């Protein structure tokens, strides 16, 4: 099935998300769609799968105009999209999720179709399990199978590798190759991960500011791709020398002994940990192995069931979150909009909540200075929900109190472009020089190796290793994450 996009345009208020996109897609190939945040990748794909109505332009399928698409019609002509956050029904059963939007059918028929399809991809599902009990990766696999069951010929995958395990990623890539090469379907792979795109794709389209700015075929030049994505000067690599190692004098910022934190569905037990001022510690490991309970527990937001926690010498074991905050612990959640900010409140109101002493003209001046300092190019009256991912994270940074001692970050740069990452780390390292200790989780090994003094590796829902980062290679860290304690570590 050939698809041609012609002059696709979409505006959100005054923002031009798509400014006339032309592209043509042929079957049997994996297309990469690259671009920084806000380049229009997701909007374009939502238009193609009928989820978003374009303001102008035309979609041609095998040369004939497809007219106005909605999700039902797009599915009927064979276009399906795997959303970045699984768009499914957690409270319902696996077979119900599979049946709905697939070929349909009752329990018996859906379970049979599911078993056949999952067998051929080496996935396995219990049709009567509640979807909420599955991992993100499994939910994604199920959505993929459902789209195949519905008979899609064009499969769109929007940032499919976010939040899934390494094994799941490999299985997904194998499936993508099979679907395009063996079954002659069109696969569109939306990503901001250059490595993955270069590995996987037969064709790479680069988007920037609502337009397709380049189309590339192998062999790819990474420099050229970066230049097309970010412009001339941003192609330089992320800085890679960790800030000065933590000070060894003075008392510890954090001392944990025998701590047990309550996670979702399990307890993270027996954590002994010392953190010195100025130290940057990365939490590596597959998602869901205990990084979240530790970070949330250190902010007083996950229940501590046993053990002792000293923050800057003060015993906070089992104390409520506000005591942690008062003592200088600060958490930046990964779900920025849902857990970190108030979507409908303005930037100004966020500042006023974080710094209640701000009043009048002096307050406004402080806020404006703060926005400039954090390169937050927004009006104070703008609600947080209107900010881009990068700007939401900058706002979260701007709201950290000056005297913070322990800074906890979940995936600080997830989904952000290189320039935003660089600015955020610049700021975090500045905080460390001022004496704050940082613990952060990340799925990006390079980010951990680039910025940490120490790495905590989580494996099988416990703290598996606590290693020095200097001289640690990506290979060695990868081995630790898969549970191998080799020699020389």
């Amino acid at each position, binding site marked *: 099935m050939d698809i041609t996009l012609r002059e696709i345009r979409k505006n959100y208020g005054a923002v031009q998300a798509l400014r006339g996109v032309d592209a043509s897609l042929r079957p049997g190939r994996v297309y990469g769609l690259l671009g920084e945040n806000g380049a229009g990748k997701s909007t374009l794909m939502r238009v193609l799968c009928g989820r978003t109505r374009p303001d102008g332009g035309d979609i041609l399928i095998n040369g004939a105009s497809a007219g106005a698409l909605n999700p039902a019609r797009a599915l009927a002509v064979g276009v399906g999209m795997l959303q970045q956050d699984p*768009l*499914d029904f957690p409270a*319902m059963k696996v077979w119900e999720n599979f049946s709905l939007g697939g070929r349909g059918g009752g329990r018996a028929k859906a379970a049979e179709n599911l078993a056949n399809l999952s067998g051929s991809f080496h996935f396995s599902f219990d049709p009567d399990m509640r979807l909420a009990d599955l991992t993100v990766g499994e939910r994604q696999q199920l959505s993929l199978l459902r789209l195949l069951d519905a008979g899609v010929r064009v499969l769109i995958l929007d940032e499919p590798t976010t939040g899934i395990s390494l094994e799941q990623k490999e299985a997904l890539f194998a499936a993508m190759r099979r679907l395009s090469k063996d079954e002659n379907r069109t696969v569109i792979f939306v990503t901001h991960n250059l490595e993955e795109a270069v590995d996987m794709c037969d064709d790479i389209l680069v988007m920037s500011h609502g337009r397709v700015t380049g189309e590339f075929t192998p062999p790819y030049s990474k420099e050229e791709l970066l230049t097309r994505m970010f412009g001339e000067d941003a192609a330089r690599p992320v800085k890679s020398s960790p800030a000065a190692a933590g000070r060894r004098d003075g008392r510890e910022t954090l001392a944990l002994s025998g701590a047990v934190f309550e996670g979702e569905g399990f307890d993270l037990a027996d954590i002994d940990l010392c953190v010195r001022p100025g130290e940057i510690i990365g939490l590596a490991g597959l998602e869901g192995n205990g990084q979240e309970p530790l970070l949330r527990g250190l902010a007083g937001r996950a229940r501590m069931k046993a053990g002792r926690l000293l923050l800057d010498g003060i015993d906070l074991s089992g104390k409520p979150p506000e005591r942690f905050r008062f003592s200088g612990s600060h958490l930046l959640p990964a779900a920025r909009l849902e857990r970190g900010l108030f979507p409908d409140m303005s930037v100004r109101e966020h500042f006023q909540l974080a710094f209640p002493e701000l009043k009048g003209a002096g307050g406004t001046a402080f806020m404006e200075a703060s926005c400039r300092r954090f390169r937050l190019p927004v009006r104070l009256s703008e609600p947080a929900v209107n900010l881009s991912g990068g700007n939401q994270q900058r706002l979260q940074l701007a709201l950290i109190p000056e005297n913070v001692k322990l800074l906890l970050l979940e995936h600080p740069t997830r989904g952000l472009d290189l320039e935003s990452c660089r600015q955020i780390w610049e700021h975090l390292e500045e905080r460390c020089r001022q004496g704050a200790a940082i613990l952060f989780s990340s799925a990006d090994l390079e980010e951990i190796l680039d910025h940490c003094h120490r790495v905590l590796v989580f494996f099988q829902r416990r703290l598996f290793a606590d290693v020095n980062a200097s001289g640690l290679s990506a290979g060695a860290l990868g081995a630790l994450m898969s549970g191998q304690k080799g020699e020389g570590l």
Partner: protein
Amino acid sequence: MDMFIATILGILAAGSPLVLASLGETISERAGVVNLSLDGAMLLSAMAAFALALTTGSAWLGFLFGGLTGAAVAGFLVVVSVYLGCSQMAIGFILTLLCRDLAYFLGNDYARLPGPDLGYWSIPGLGGISPVVYVSVIAMFLVWRWMFFTRSGLRARAVGESPQAAFSRGVKVNRIRILCVLTGGFMAGLAGGAYSLAIKNGWGRPQGCEGAGWICLAIVIFGGWSPWKVVAGAYFFAALQVAGIHLQDLFPGLPGPVFQVAPFPIMILTLLLANLGRMRRVKDLAARNPFVKKIVSGLNASAPEALGKDFNEDM
């Protein structure tokens, strides 16, 4: 023994309009729409059913008309909330007050008149049983079958969980919501008719069904939006009411209103017990004790994820 059978039949009869209305509300809420107009709609339907039955002489025609009246009120709610984007809660609240006043105003001419009723269908050895009992029992099985074993039932639940996800899978979200709310309203209307034509015969001020709609809204929550538990909740409340009547004879010393009011605080207490599983201490206990865990997980239920939330196709 006769006494026992009479009590059971009494509970079945008193419970049947509650079963009808709470199941109707369950359908509507599983699709994501709260129909707060329930109480007023039931009252208006009770009046309409009685009035038509009196005029035409046919109780069954009146019963059906009650259902249609309930559906009409629900239809107004759904058009204003789903299509015109007003708050479901606010509209439902106003509608319930409006319908109540409307019922007493329009029904003034029919007050305290003897009229037809649905009569009894006897079962040999048991005695006369009101037709609304049969209707409510059939409704239970239909609702359960529809909700869990049909394509449209699956779609309706999906719409209540996540309209976004349902829409992107080609489901017509608004159409399903409208059909579910209309069906729910129809059942609430039948419940109103059941009161004025069978359970609390006749029309007057106050009609015996005043307040029943609010109880039904609570029963839906109590039953965790699951049809069988909702049915159990409806009969439980009916049992409390019937028990009150019997206890009154046993304890003549206590003032009558105590027994009329007692079901309400007992209902609150039961709600509290049913939700114990959400308390941290109980959670901890359940983690250690498999027996407690079994009980708690059976009781715990969460609302449809998108309950009361509007849905807009364009994004």
